[in-house]
Structures are given as C-alpha cells and as structure tokens.
C-alpha cells in the first residue's frame, strides 16, 4: 500500500509540475509494455506451427540427422520461454538468426529493405502532407465553390479505393496502355538502394500520395472552415486585418493542429500500405520482403519485419499524440 501511495505521490507531483512530460512518460511506458506484449504475440503466433519450423523447411521426407541439426540451429530443442528470450535479446543485439529460405542472416537481408521503405514512407508523407494541407485550405477558403465540390467528391471516391487498384490505374495510364513514360516495375535487385535509380520511386510514391491525400484534405478542410468561422477570425476581420494575414497567421495555425493528428495517422497507415504497393511495383522494401517471406514461410524474417512494423506503428502513435498536444494550447492547459 505504502509503495503504491508513494508512487502515486511522485506521479501526481510530476503531473502538477510538468503535465506534458508526465503524459509523454506515461504514453511511452504504455507503449513499451504494448510492444513487449506484441513481440510475445508475434513469437507465439509463429510457434504454433503444426510440426515445427525445421520440419516445415526440410519437408516431409526430412533426414532425421539434418532435422536434428536444424532444430539445434533454431534452438527448437530449448523450452518455449528460452526460445522467446533468445529471440527477444536478438532483436536488440542484431543476432536474429538466418533466413530459412536462403540461409542469409536476417539483419543483412532486411536492412537495405528497411532503408528503402523508410525513404518511400518519408517522401510520401512529406509530399502528401503539403499537398493535403494546401488543397484542404484552398477548398475551405472557397467553401461550396466548384473546386470545393470537385475536390470533396474526388476525396470521398479515392478514400474507398484499394491501393493496388490505384497502382494498377497509374500503370495503365503512364507505363503501359495509354502512355509509356515510366517503367511499370522496378528492376532493382533486393539489397540495392532506391536512390541508385530515383525514377523508380515516382510511381510508388505517386500511388501512396493519392491514397493518403484525401484524408489530410478532408480534415484540413473541416478544421479550416471551423477556424474561419470562429470568433477570433471575426474579431480580426472587424479590426481590419488584411485577408492574407487572417488566413496565414490567424486561421492556418489553429486549423493545422487537428490536421497534424491525421497526418500522423496516415504515417501509421503507410506502415501497412507499403506492403501491397511495394509488391505491385517490385520495390525492394520491407513490404515486398514480408510478402516473399510469408510466401516462403520464412518465419525468422516474418517475425522480424512484423515486429519492426508494429514498433513503428506504436511509436508513431505516441509521437502523433504528443505533437497534437503541443500544437493545441487549449488542450495543453485543460489538463
């Protein structure tokens, strides 16, 4: 009892003095705990394999000697808790074992893919955010105008499309049937980096931008309209503040706060969205790597990529919350 009381007292004093810091610490703690549970779920899910991994790799007619050797290599002769511990500590030391498909170390296999996907997500997020905010603000300024209607209906339409349909439409349009401007699939070998052929980034980035912009657009439009109809904008108008200043200095910053949250949510979406898009364009990132690994039942690679994606997801979620909190003075004080 006394211990929990003391802990509560520390927490409360932290919460009083640095409310934001306390919140960040709490979110981070919950995030780390979530990730630990996630890693256990991933590990257990892949361990319920009927037979075991060694059997799955070598097949039905496996030679008992080789089966035994592979079991030792994969630590399958240890207890489940030991196996989990070996795997979990490997996540931090980089000793992730070898791919069951081709015997290469998992880390060497996944690292270049990780960097390629990071490039793809970052470029997409940047272009998508700028485009979404600009289009949303423009639609809000001319609310119920022609541009607003066209953009809103297109946004609703595009949000319902699967990524691979957008990708295929782009391929039909610019690289096969209608025009022949860009290569339909990248011919980059796995293990090479995207910037050695930047042209191959264009279609994957374009696809993902088309998929995420509508969400950012809709939120930006809604919050910009709200800001423009607010009392402080009315006040600024009555005081004779010029229009451009009202939009850029008064309305835009306030409209951006909720939009940042949606931009963050779209980065989250990209963690899953890259899977299909990378596969369509043969882009050598972790999404394509995951599809190949699932296809080959390459369990060590699947485990690692899924944990990486989940970690990105959880950390991005926390980051989004914190930024949204910092960007909204109203909510910061309310705590």
């Amino acid at each position, binding site marked *: 009892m006394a211990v929990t009381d003391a802990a509560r007292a520390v927490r409360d004093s932290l919460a009083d003095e640095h409310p934001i810091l306390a919140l960040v610490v709490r979110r981070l703690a919950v995030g780390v705990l979530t990730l630990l549970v996630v890693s256990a779920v991933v590990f257990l899910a892949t361990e319920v394999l009927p037979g075991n991994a060694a059997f799955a790799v070598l097949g039905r007619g496996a030679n008992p000697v080789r089966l035994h050797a592979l079991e030792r290599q994969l630590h399958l002769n240890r207890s489940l808790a030991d196996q989990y511990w070996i795997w979990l500590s490997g996540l931090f030391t980089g000793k992730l074992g070898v791919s069951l498909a081709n015997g290469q170390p998992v880390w060497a296999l996944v690292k270049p893919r990780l960097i390629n996907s990071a490039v793809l997500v970052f470029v997409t997020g940047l272009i998508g955010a700028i485009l979404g905010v600009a289009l949303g603000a423009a639609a809000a300024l001319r609310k119920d105008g022609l541009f607003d209607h066209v953009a809103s209906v297109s946004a609703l339409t595009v949000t319902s*499309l699967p990524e691979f349909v957008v990708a295929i439409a782009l391929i039909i349009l610019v690289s096969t049937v209608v025009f022949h401007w860009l290569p339909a699939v990248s011919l980059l070998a796995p293990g090479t980096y995207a910037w050695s052929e930047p042209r191959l980034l264009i279609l994957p980035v374009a696809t993902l931008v088309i998929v995420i912009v509508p969400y950012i657009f809709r939120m930006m439009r809604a919050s910009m309209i709200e800001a423009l109809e607010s009392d402080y904008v009315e006040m600024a108008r009555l005081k004779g503040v010029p229009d451009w200043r009202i939009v850029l200095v008064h309305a835009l910053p306030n409209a951006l706060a909720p939009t940042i949250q949606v931009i963050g949510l779209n980065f989250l979406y990209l963690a899953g969205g890259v899977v299909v898009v990378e596969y369509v364009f043969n882009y050598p990132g972790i999404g394509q790597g995951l599809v190949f690994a699932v296809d080959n039942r390459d369990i060590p690679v699947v485990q690692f990529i899924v944990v990486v994606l989940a970690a990105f997801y959880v950390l991005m979620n926390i980051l989004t919350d914190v930024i949204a909190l910092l960007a909204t003075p109203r909510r910061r004080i309310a705590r």
Partner: protein
Amino acid sequence: MAVAAPSVAGTSPRGTSRMVRHPWLSTAWRAARTLRGVVGLSLSGSIVLIAIIGPFVTPDPPDALLTLTFAKPSSHFPLGSDFLGRDVLSRVLDGGWVLLVMAALATALGIIAGAAAGISAAYLRGRSDALIMRTVDVILAFPQLVFALLLLSVLGPQLWLIVLAVGLSHAPQVARVIRSATLNISERDYVKVAELQGMRPRRIMTSEILPNLVSPLTVETGLRLTYSIVIMAGLSFLGFGQQPPAANWGLMINENRTGLPLNPWAVIVPAALIALLTIGTNTFTDAFARVAIGIDRPPEESALIDELTLRESR
C-alpha cells in the same frame, strides 16, 4: 415523452408528420434518397448483383482453356482472354461471389466481437474495461493487412483463416467507437431506471443499450465492409486468397498484369468492379452517417473526434 426519437431520427421537420417508424429505418430511408445514397446504393447493388447472378450465366466454363493467351476482345470472347487463354468475361462473372461472402463474414465477425467488447468495456468499467482496452491496444499495434499476413505465414493461405484474421483486426476499431458511444448512453435516465429496477447487467446491455447503438453500428458496418473488401481483394492480389485456378477479381488483376499491353481488359474490368463496389459501399455509408449525425462531417473525422474525447476522458 418523445425524447429519444427526434434526436436519432434527425432534424427534418417532415419526419414528424409521418407515421411513427423505427428511427433506423427512417434514417436509412432518408439516406437512400440523398444524391450520395442513390449513387452508393446503385453502384454497390449492381456489382453485388453481378457477383451473385454471374456464376449462373457464364457463357463458357471459367476454367476452360479456349483460345490464345491474352487475345483481344472478339465477338466470341467480348473481353478477350487471360494469361492461359481462358474467357475473361466468364471468369469476371464467376470471380466475385467468394470475395463478397468472405468480406461479409469478416465484417459480421468484427462488428459482433467489437460491439460486445466495446459495450462491456464501457458499461462494466473497472477491470473489464482495462483488460478489454489493453487487448484492443495490442491488436491495434498491427496494421490490419500485416496482422492477416502474420497468421497466414503460419498456417498457409486458408480462406477461413483470412476471414478470422480480418474480422479480428476489425474488432478493436469497432470496440473503440462503440465504447465511447456506450459511455454516453449508459448515463441516460432509462438506463438508470432499469438499474434501479434490478435488471441484470447483461440484460441492460442487450435490451437497453444495444438498441440505441444501431446508428453508429450501421456506420461502422459500412466502413468495415468497405475495408474488408479492400483487404480481401488485396490478399487475393498478393496470392494469399483463393488459389489458382479459381477465378477471383483480385487474383485476376495480378495474373493478367503482364499482358496489359496485349489485352488490358483482363485487368481493367476486375479492377473497375472492385473499385466501383468499394466506392458504392463507402458512398452509401457516408450518406447514412451524414443523415444520422446530422452534421456535415465524414465518418472518419467524427470517429477521430470520438477518439480524442475518449482519450481526454481517460
């Protein structure tokens, strides 16, 4: 005591002069008469019709090798042939129904599990709430497609597993929305009255709270159905859904994309059918949400706002 009805049925004064109807029906009816409602219903309705009637009216057997590969459309094969020389039209007609059934099952599973979890969390509070919402957080840590792929990597491509994986990955999102809606409802007077009368918690949840969640549940069902179709088609496209030689719109797109310069219709038609179907379900859901909420806000944003208020209240 006409308190509950107008708040759900919405803002139109015309509704009051009509016969008293179930509020959900009147919302759905009014949504179906908006422009978006008409477009959404007719789009999704016609695609569903194609998928259901299609298998009975195929001009050729969908699996038969009949002509050259990637043949252009001709009088005998109106959409040309695919990468093995099979009739594209027959395969398109046969290739939708499994996708639809699987999407519907996954949606039902996600809505039922999510609603049960969300209502229990909000009404029982305390430990049940904490346990349910922490579980929700863990499942939410996986992108939906990745969650499905994780399970598929273990047991191989199995249709029941895909339904289970997609349904399960919907449940947490549904649970969040329904939880915040229930928090609001469980403070209402009629719930308090039922409690004072000694009604059991389970009974209160099913007969007092659930009927008042019909509108948010409908919006969630529409959204989840759209996402189910997107994910199911995506998994088929990646080769983890129905296996060849089955005809499946997602799989067809992947199989035939190498032949795009020769016979683009083998790709365009299944892609367009999937696109029109998801646009249809999403547009109708949007129409319903606008009528039900009564404000000009798309569903994602209202869900986001719910989520923000939910976090503040925690």
